């Protein structure tokens, strides 16, 4: 799996469909406030897109876009974003993950909750993406 798939039709089809999967994944993440979806599902869809590219184009080409070295860092960064939002609420005088207490001037409390949820979902998506890709990368490593 480190090599390309080697079939023009398969490689081209995967390349053509990947941007649409990426767009749909981002839609699922950012539209989670209004429709079914959110960080876990969106992150899994984004990871599926990256894995499809890894399977069709091979590790050598796709590691330039999604470097295997970066994936554990992505997973940790997502978790840190989530934790950072929670700790920011503590600095504002609230409880951990009480988004309404985040100290931002001129933003109403419901809006703070709204954006806090969005940041949390983004952190979850980044974490799920990094974890799924790093598991895939460690599993397909041959030799």
């Amino acid at each position, binding site marked *: 799996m480190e090599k390309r798939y080697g079939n023009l039709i398969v490689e081209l089809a995967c390349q053509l469909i990947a941007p649409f999967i990426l767009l749909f994944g981002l839609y699922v993440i950012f539209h*989670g*406030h*209004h*429709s*079914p979806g*959110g*960080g*876990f599902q969106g992150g899994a869809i984004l990871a599926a897109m990256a894995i499809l590219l890894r399977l069709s184009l091979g590790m050598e080409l796709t590691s330039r876009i999604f470097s295997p070295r970066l994936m*554990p860092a992505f*997973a*940790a960064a*997502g*978790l840190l974003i*989530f*934790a950072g939002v*929670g700790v920011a609420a503590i600095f504002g005088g609230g409880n*951990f*993950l009480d*988004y*309404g207490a985040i100290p931002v001037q001129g933003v109403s409390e*419901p*809006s703070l*909750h*709204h954006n*806090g*949820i969005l940041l*949390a*979902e983004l*952190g*979850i998506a980044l*974490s*799920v993406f*990094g*974890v*799924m890709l*790093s*598991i895939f990368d*460690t*599993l397909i*490593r041959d030799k």
Partner: protein
Amino acid sequence: MKPVMVIVTLMFAGVMSYLMMSLPPFGDPSAPANQHISPYYIENTIEDTDTPNIVTSILADYRGYDTFGETLVIFTAGLGCFLLLRRHSDGKTIR
């Protein structure tokens, strides 16, 4: 499997199936689980979080602590795979 184990298992399954009949129907609004805190979420989600999707606001806001733990679980699982299955510089899979 010993016969006594089979009998005990079947009896346990019978008791559980009998008790299942006294559970409230699925989605019953008068069930105790739907009386306590669910109405609060349904009534106050928009004012509290400005989010039309109640599921999202419960998942990431009211029950954010739980979701944080879930993310931590996923991260730990990924880290476990990464650390156990990676190749070291000496070429071995597991040291």
